[in-house]
């Protein structure tokens, strides 16, 4: 099956600064894809090339299995990081306009706008002017306007920034529903916890280059389970075990980092002989740790 998005070694530079360098990635239908990276790493520049706002200097963009063409954009929903709506327009008019612009007829656009407003719990604001609404409400409206035309590919730049927890969950659930309906979703963020929870695949970019990409499980499996969390009672001399690189002992709760390729099982065996073990968990590295490990200390996200 053809990928919904396929970037083949795209590069873009502004003036003398390279924003994106030789970036390649694939997004399949029915997956949630996380584009990660510190601020200024080239996330927005990459996204803008996917939606035809700018053209890559070299490399190619394919959408829905075809080389980039403007007509395909009708099946793409794009929510930019910089939110913008027509301030003087009424919410409903605005949504219908956006729908019509992407090829819906007026009646369909009106019906879908109504359904979406209901689903996003902002029906009571439908007759108000955009400028009268709160930031969060405006964000929901923009979210709807991205989805009005039932796009096959949904691209959202930092969709969760500025949303309160209740609305963030509402948005998350909606995205999961869309994914289960077979849409491809790409979103960029620097919130690792959300990516970890939501994404099937990721691409981590730093200074315009992909430094890590692939399926979430696959990426994680590349990193060893080298951390152990234990709860115990009794003698703690097993902490001198040669497998341990370093540890922090919080009176009965220890966090351990193992040496590379160390045998965690032998540590467990020794611990069992000396103390009573309540918990022994070999933790996989969090995305955040992978992120920091890969990008180094330059992260300001």
């Amino acid at each position, binding site marked *: 099956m053809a990928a919904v998005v396929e970037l083949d070694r795209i590069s873009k530079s502004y003036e003398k600064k390279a924003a994106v360098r030789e970036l390649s990635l694939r997004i399949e239908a029915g997956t949630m894809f996380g584009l990660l990276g510190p601020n200024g790493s080239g996330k927005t520049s990459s996204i803008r090339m996917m939606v035809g*706002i700018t053209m890559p200097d070299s490399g190619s963009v394919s959408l829905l299995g075809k080389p980039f063409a403007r007509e395909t954009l009708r099946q793409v929903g794009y929510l930019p990081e910089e939110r913008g709506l027509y301030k003087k327009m009424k919410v409903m008019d605005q949504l219908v306009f956006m729908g*019509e*612009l992407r090829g819906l007829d007026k009646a369909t656009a009106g019906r879908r706008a109504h359904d979406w407003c209901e689903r996003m719990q902002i029906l009571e604001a439908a007759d108000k002017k955009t400028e009268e609404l709160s930031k969060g409400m405006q964000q929901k409206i923009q979210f709807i306007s991205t989805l009005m035309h039932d796009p096959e590919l949904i691209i959202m730049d930092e969709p969760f920034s500025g949303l309160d927890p209740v609305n963030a969950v509402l948005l998350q659930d909606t995205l999961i529903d869309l994914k289960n309906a077979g849409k491809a979703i790409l979103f960029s963020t620097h919130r690792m916890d959300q990516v970890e929870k939501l994404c099937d695949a990721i691409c981590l970019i730093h200074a315009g280059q992909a430094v890590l990409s692939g399926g979430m499980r696959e990426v994680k499996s590349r990193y060893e389970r080298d951390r152990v969390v234990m709860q115990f009672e009794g003698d703690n001399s097993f902490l001198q075990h040669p497998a341990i690189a370093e540890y922090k002992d919080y009176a009965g709760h220890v966090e351990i980092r193992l040496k590379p390729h160390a045998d965690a099982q032998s540590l467990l065996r020794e611990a069992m002989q000396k103390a009573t073990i309540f918990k022994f968990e070999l933790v996989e590295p969090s995305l955040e740790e992978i992120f920091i490990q890969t990008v180094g200390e330059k992260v300001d996200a």
Partner: protein
Amino acid sequence: MHEILLIAKREFLEQVRGKAFKVTTILIPVIFGAIIGISVFASKNSGQGKHIVIAANDAPLASRIREKLLADKDAHMSVDVLAPAAESDRQQLISKIDQKQLDGFLWLTTDANATNPNATFVGRSSGDFATESRLSDAVDHAIVQQRLSSHGIPTDDIDSLTKGVKIETEQVKNGKEVGSSTLGSFFAAYIMAFLLTFTVMMYGMNVGRSVIQEKTSRIFEVMLSTVKPTDMLAGKLIGIGAVGLSQLAIWAAAALLFSSTALAASLMSGGLKIQISAIEIILFAVYFLLGYALYSTLFAGLAATCESEQELQQYAPLAAVPVWLSFSMITFIVSNPNSFWSVAISLFPPCAPIAMFLRIASQFPPLWQIALSIVLLLLSVVVVVWFASRIYRIGILMYGKRATVPEMLRWLRYS
């Protein structure tokens, strides 16, 4: 095309529903009416209600002048005669002017039979041209009558001999003489040129403002992921241009309605006939559209390089220089419509809409000149659109700092 129309429709509705449209639709004709009314009223009534004294050594001559001055019904002057007057009276009159009991006096000395007359007007204000011309007219008239009477010509004959002629002006149109009033066609030209300047600038600025609003609200980024920047610009130009045409149509309809009322009939009976022909209306629309296209794309390009509305406003007067240039030439063009400079400025695209229109209103220029000016205007619209759309395309995606000229030149190459 569908997208351009949608964008045009949105822009049109937003502008027409806005407060500014309603306010300007009502206010501009009111202001125009007021300006014209005041200037007509002022020109009719200047030098009115003055109180002057005619001091002369020749009493019959003085009373003739007085009669003549009083005959001018518009002037409402009150005129006293002091004759014969001595040098001491002059001092008294001067002190009366000082005390504001008098507006001025005419000091007139003649020899016998009204030969070697010597007239001085002493007045409180120095620039009272209306009173001065009335006085000089009256003195001339009275002296001629006095001289004729001293040659023994009977009074009745004198009146018929000195009866003046009022000049009727006519204009040749299509080989036929038609009645015209120079004042009327001047006013028509003046009003239409003013209206053209005003609407072209206003709607050109509107486009600029609309671009900058989309830039500051970041809406264009969503838009650009669906439509091409050129379509977006085209839709905006069509939408706002349609607003301008609608406003002009509303004014035209209102003017037509007004001209059929009794009030208008009574105003027009004063000899001030404003004549506007159908071809003038069509050309007005053509020049409005072309002028608007030229200036609005210019403003759109300018706006795309700016960061805020305030910044745009700083540059706007610069872009408007040609408009003011042609506007300042109004009197010259209206009185010398076929001189080299009038023709040149009416062919120069940035000035063409207004300058050519002034020429049309005063004397219909050769058709080839109109055609040439329209072609030149069209060509420059194409060139400006080419530049502006490229600048626009990249400019709207830049924020943070204003673009420099070398940067803009690079933008032209990018696209």
